[in-house]
């Protein structure tokens, strides 16, 4: 077990890579009641074309299967695991993103038992035809719920504009049609390929004794029989740099229109410190352009084009990435035009001052301190960072090093007509 100190933050992190390849991290948090643990596999909705364990050929699996598998893993021959957790006073949950599936619990008592339950249930799949069929009704309602949600439709609409081939454009839950093709055998095939300990990470944060918990996990894993895994082969079709569609308008049962503009990221093959710097630079650029203290924000708010739903965000993972800006608006076309102009002004050399940059960096540093108050944030983000070969605790030093030149280079490279797109939701006539 190695110990890593983060002096300025007054945090210590313990790490060990177990014999079967599982990476375990423990962050003790004194004074907290809650322990939060996540058990995450590097397998998400984009992993839909791969070579199954023990086979040679690539297979394409139905859309939404990673998420379906997440639901089904909770069910065992003798009932569901939620029951087990709540008997032990814990609340359990799970989520599937584009690139990860995470299982988690939080509890303030019986932490050892809950940890055992978490690790064991994820490592002991039980799928039957009957329960797979029943789940189709529940997930069908989940999909329908999102269909009625204008913000979700807007978000995915924009990704679908931006990406032509990459599976990031597929809704994480799939469609009612696509999930109808899911069978128990397909679930086992995905499970066996992606749920090997060497493709997973366990993170525990809370008022815990690291040594004791590391011993527990080590013992638990030693009892289980895992053969060494070959590297997982995933296939993604080539994705052009250009967006697929510059604009899409969705008509929905809403009173207020919504507008998001987006831009496809460059350099999506980055990992490690390079990716960290790239995404932080992009985040600072967006802050300078659209943060509440920016002139742009003030202008848009004063013109009545935006309200408090206005937000901006940058996502980058291996193989895809995008920036998004927008929110509710009375005039979606005008907002799209103005946001675009603001972006292109930045490309052509906007006059950000050193003072503004300094403030934007300070703001990000404060936001990071606030975020590490949260065990959930630490566990989830640390895992995401680790899967991309980055370290969450490098955020502040990396931020401090961002220069005006980095910002300008970023703006001039990334902002481009061919990577730009707009998605709007407007009231149905």
């Amino acid at each position: 077990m190695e110990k890593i100190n983060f002096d300025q933050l007054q945090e210590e992190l313990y790490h060990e890579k177990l014999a079967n390849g599982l990476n375990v991290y423990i962050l003790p948090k004194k004074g907290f009641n809650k322990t939060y643990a996540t058990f995450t596999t590097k397998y998400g909705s984009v992993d839909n074309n791969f070579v199954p364990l023990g086979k040679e050929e690539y297979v394409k699996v139905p859309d939404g299967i990673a998420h379906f598998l997440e639901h089904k893993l909770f069910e065992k021959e003798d009932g569901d695991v939620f029951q087990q957790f709540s008997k032990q006073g814990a609340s359990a949950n799970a989520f599937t993103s584009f690139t990860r599936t995470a299982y988690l619990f939080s509890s303030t008592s019986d932490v050892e038992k809950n940890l055992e339950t978490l690790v064991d249930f994820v490592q002991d799949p039980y799928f039957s035809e009957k329960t797979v069929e029943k789940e189709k009704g529940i997930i069908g309602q989940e999909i329908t719920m999102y269909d009625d949600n204008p913000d979700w439709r807007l978000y995915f609409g924009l990704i679908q504009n931006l990406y032509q081939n990459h599976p990031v454009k597929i809704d994480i839950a799939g469609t009612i049609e696509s999930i109808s093709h899911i069978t128990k055998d397909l679930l086992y095939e995905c499970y066996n390929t992606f749920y090997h300990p060497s493709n997973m990470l366990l993170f525990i944060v809370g008022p815990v004794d690291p040594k004791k918990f590391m011993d527990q996990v080590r013992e638990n894993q030693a009892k289980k029989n895992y053969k060494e895994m070959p590297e997982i082969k995933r296939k993604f079709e080539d994705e052009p740099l250009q967006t697929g569609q510059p604009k899409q308008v969705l008509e929905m049962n809403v009173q207020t229109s919504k507008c998001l503009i987006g831009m496809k990221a460059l350099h999506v093959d980055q990992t490690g410190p390079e990716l960290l710097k790239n995404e932080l630079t992009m985040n600072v650029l967006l802050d300078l352009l659209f943060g509440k203290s920016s002139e742009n924000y003030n202008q848009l708010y004063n013109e009545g084009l935006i309200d408090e739903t206005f937000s901006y965000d940058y996502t980058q993972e291996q193989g895809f990435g995008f920036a998004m800006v927008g929110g509710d608006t009375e005039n979606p076309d005008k907002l799209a035009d103005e946001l675009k102009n603001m972006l292109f002004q930045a490309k052509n050399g906007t006059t950000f001052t050193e003072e503004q940059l300094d403030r934007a960096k300070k703001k990000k540093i404060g936001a990071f301190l606030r975020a590490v108050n949260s065990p959930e944030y630490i566990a989830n983000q640390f895992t995401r960072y680790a899967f991309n070969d980055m370290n969450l605790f490098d955020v502040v030093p990396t931020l401090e090093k961002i220069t005006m030149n980095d910002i300008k280079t970023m703006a001039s490279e990334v902002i481009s007509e061919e990577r730009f797109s707009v998605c709007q939701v407007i009231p149905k006539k």
Partner: protein
Amino acid sequence: MDSTAEKITTMQGYKLHVIETDKYKTNTFVWKMKAPLTKEGVTKRALLPHVLQSSSANYPTTTALRSYLDELYGATLFIDLAKKGEYHIISFTLEIANEKFLSDPTPLLKKGFELLSEVLTKPNVSGNAFDQETVNKEKRTLKQRIQSVYDDKMRYSNVRLLQEMCKGEPYALQVNGEAEDVDTITPENLYEYFKKAFSEDEMDLYVIGDVKEEEVKSLAENLLKFEDRTPKKVVTTEIPKKDQVNEIKEEQDVKQGKLNVGYRTNIVYGDSDYFALQLFNGIFGGFSHSKLFINVREKASLAYYVSSRLESHKGLMMVMSGIDLKNYDQAVGIIRDQLEAMQKGDFTDQELIQTKAVIRNQILETIDTSRGLTEILYHNVVAAKDIKLEQWINDMEKTTKEEIVAVANKIELDTIYFLTGTEAVK
């Protein structure tokens, strides 16, 4: 549970609550002001905090104010409105980094406090009116905010349930005010309301973090002073009993139906059977091991989400679920059956033990965040009680099955609201 050691001091015009803890890397201020919910006041009250946080005397534009917050290592300032019982509560939350984690020694606690004081007491005013432009801007945003409820069908159906269920009671009013009243607000009458609110509301300040009580007290004495007051209490009137369940169906172009069911629990925070009610709600629909989740979702496969929650100060319980349009009768039937089962005592000791464990866990988790802790402590202010968290947990642990069955029999189904799709109507 030492983190709930709340030190309360009566200051001029408000109460100061200090919670010293070294759990966090930030310090948090929560300013709360509470007044009875009224038709005349609700919309101004919903607008006021937005105007106050938009600019101030020394930071007369949003850009200036927000730049200063960024300068203070991205201090966050946000406001929040809530209904608790028949009260309308405004909260201002300011969270700021603790400088001990920074290389820069700027005294952020003091600066944060000064800024909070600036926003609350030195508004951007000329003569006897708020800045006209700010008010106009915020009125426009308020209208959008009120309107946006319509577009989120989950929130919309919850609002509609309460409007139908509590017709004629203040609780039916929307937390963000009423659209038709926005235009009647002027920079003058809003300023008038501002003075009234700060001289009549019950006001509380929570300061949570690695702070010293004495230091906070002396900052508070210097920076925040108001007139003393006796806060207004809501006089609750007896709600006439409905002779039959109120059933409302509304059609809209939606794919998923939203089923919202409202009950009168006839129990509020501070009542002796309040903890039994918490347990009732937990077994009935509060968690993923609850009857509603097991029977509506897991067994009948009708919904992705189905749960119940309490409004502790108003004595309501609300069930919400998203179902297929054609499954209305079946879902309502299952939900009704679960209440009946509870009333007959048809639940196991295991379910009871499980629910106690989960609620205990939930409370302890809630107080791990400074906001959660504030919300738990503030219950006592709203209800004018002094129930310690330890007592809360102990009383809950001691609650028996009989007490829960007694609570179940006090609960009355009041209103069923269904937002249904246009295609469902033949």
